[in-house]
């Protein structure tokens, strides 16, 4: 499972770089690519998603990492994405190919909620 996730991340990264390169002259893309490089991670600490709200450009792969001693999940309210149960230090990645607001929560501890805004 981890190998599949890693491959997916690698693919998305390669694709993203190629995509940015192809349209480098388009004006707003370098800024978008910059943001993507900085903030595509959601860390799970102390039963909360950080950042709770993350804004990313279309095509970004977001990776969740569970840093708690207790397992968590990241499941979209609309069932668009659903991680396996993440034990300590396990990761889950999802690539957002369409703009929109994606609200999600931990299906084990539903008080834990977060939001990915894809622009």
């Amino acid at each position: 499972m981890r190998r599949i996730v890693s491959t997916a991340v690698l693919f998305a990264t390669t694709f993203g770089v190629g995509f940015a390169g192809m349209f480098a002259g388009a004006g707003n893309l370098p800024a978008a690519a910059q943001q993507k490089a900085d903030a595509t991670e959601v860390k799970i600490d102390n039963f909360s998603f950080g950042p709770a709200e993350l804004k990313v450009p279309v095509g970004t792969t977001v990776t969740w990492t569970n840093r708690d001693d207790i397992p968590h999940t990241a499941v979209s309210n609309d069932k668009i994405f659903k991680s396996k149960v993440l034990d300590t230090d396990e990761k889950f990645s999802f690539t957002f190919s369409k703009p929109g607001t994606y609200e999600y929560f931990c299906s084990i501890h539903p008080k834990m909620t977060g939001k990915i805004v894809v622009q």
Partner: protein
Amino acid sequence: MTEKSKDELLHDHNHDGVDRRGFLKCMAWAGTGAFCVMQGGVLKSYSMSNMSQAASKITAGQLSFVQISDSHMGFNKAANPDVVGTLKTAVDKVNALSTPAEFMLHTGDISHLSKPEEFDTVDQILKGATPKDIFYVPGEHDMLNDDGKQYMERYGKNTKGSGWYSFDKKGVHFIGLVNVLNLKAGGLGTLGHDQLEWMEDDVKHLKSSTPIVVFAHIPLWSVYPEWGWGTEDSAQALAYLKKFGSVTVLNGHIHQTMQKVEGSVTFHTAASTAFPQPEPGKAPSPGPMKVPAEQLKSVLGITDVNYVHGQHALAVVDSSLA
């Protein structure tokens, strides 16, 4: 449950005694231990040092059972690297009770990650317990990834729906509920429409003098909703039990003992056999609490419950593993 009673619990849970509105709550870290007897809706509590005095008030041999909870088999972090050892100690405690338990309830989180080998290990250890009958309800950790399919195969043979059921022992009616499935974003534990409907029907024909014991993983009272320690639709379930003179609700999930009496209902949460969690709001999150190794067994424990015919009294005793 009123907002006010919630507030009282939140802000008063770690104090002793009776509050102005007549509720008596006793919360005890398993390390200090508490022995509680409910008679006519009044809960009397004794410290562990007065155990012999309290024990003499119970007539042995009517109905005695044990609740264990939150074994979290597979957990191996700093808060307790040896959950096998502490579960074995819990079994030793059960086997050493002066009034032998007739059966056990396990109020969920048998496993930590729903792995088959975790369930196997718990089953193997619990085979060493004197009481041979064990009644389970699932915790959220037992139904990860497969919506409870494996749990149902292992423990759900004689149950309804996603694992709920009832049974009778010596005139006491036991109801096992499932409130860990289909949890909604931002929400608490959930029983759901089908289960509530079944429960209404299950108790409809019982005499109001029948003592009722309800057991479920997540508390059926609002212990601390901010941490998800409560059940969305528990008020509906409790409404079906209003006519009964003696209702005891046993839960796990919060890894600490806590009690509260509201009308004819006594709520009780059991300690974990694996690791302690912080008191409500006393830490940034409800994650496992690391205590010095020599203190660990004092914050883990089992719950021994005695019922005496004719008195409508259930005596709930928490014992630490120390």
